[in-house]
């Protein structure tokens, strides 16, 4: 299964939240909203911190392109696993090697997230997932 297919196999679940990111002040809103979404899904404070940092890093990264964008947060289910998915459309990555983007993203995010993907949906979209540990 390709990474593009695998993101589609996860069923979405609430919460579904969107944050409009226009300037660096909005990064704090992203952190706050992500912590709240993670709390609703039962993540511990430590994992909330991890998710909030991942979402803020993605928002900062996208903001560096100089354009306003929307960061999407939603719950996902894979069998009995619950997780939080963070995604942002990145149209400027059209035509860029997905491998190079993923290497750069994984290097920036380190162990913050369980999965990082670049999907064409049809716009290139960066998707990151962290699963709740039991």
């Amino acid at each position, binding site marked *: 299964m390709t990474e593009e297919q695998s993101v589609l196999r996860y069923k979405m679940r609430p919460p579904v939240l969107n944050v409009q990111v226009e300037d660096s002040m909005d990064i704090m809103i992203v952190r706050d909203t992500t912590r709240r979404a993670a709390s609703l899904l039962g993540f511990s*404070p*430590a994992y909330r*911190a991890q998710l909030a940092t*991942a979402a803020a890093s993605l928002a900062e990264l996208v903001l560096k392109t100089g354009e306003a964008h929307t960061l999407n947060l939603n719950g996902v289910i894979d069998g009995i696993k619950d997780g939080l998915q963070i995604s942002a459309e990145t149209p400027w990555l059209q035509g860029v090697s997905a491998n190079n983007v993923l290497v750069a993203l994984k290097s920036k*995010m380190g*162990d913050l997230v369980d999965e990082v993907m670049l999907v064409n949906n049809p716009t290139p979209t960066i998707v990151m997932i962290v699963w709740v540990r039991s």
Partner: protein
Amino acid sequence: MVLEVLLVEDSKTQAAQIAEMLESVGLRVRVAYDGPDGLREAMDNPPSLIVLDVKLPTMDGFQVCRRLKRSPSTQDIPVIMLTEKAGPKATMSGLRAGADDYIPKDIFASEHLMETLEELGILQE
């Protein structure tokens, strides 16, 4: 019973602000202004919670947290790192050191701190 918090923070201004916030919800606060002092205070008289800055003189917050979590007398005390260092590497360093939460000092810091205190049972709703 009044629960006690050990605050390890080198900035006197910030220590006063954080202490005031914690005292406003009924907690007693002791302050240590560097890492070694924080460790001594925690081991000599274990508090119910430790709020720990990262940028500290002599020994940084990550080192302090690692030592707290290694010592049998302090390993079960929840540690919340409250810091200006908000990047991925710093966050993972804090969590790997054993912190129970890692909160950047931004406009939502006090709200996030209070939520975590509630969840840890330090604050009663």
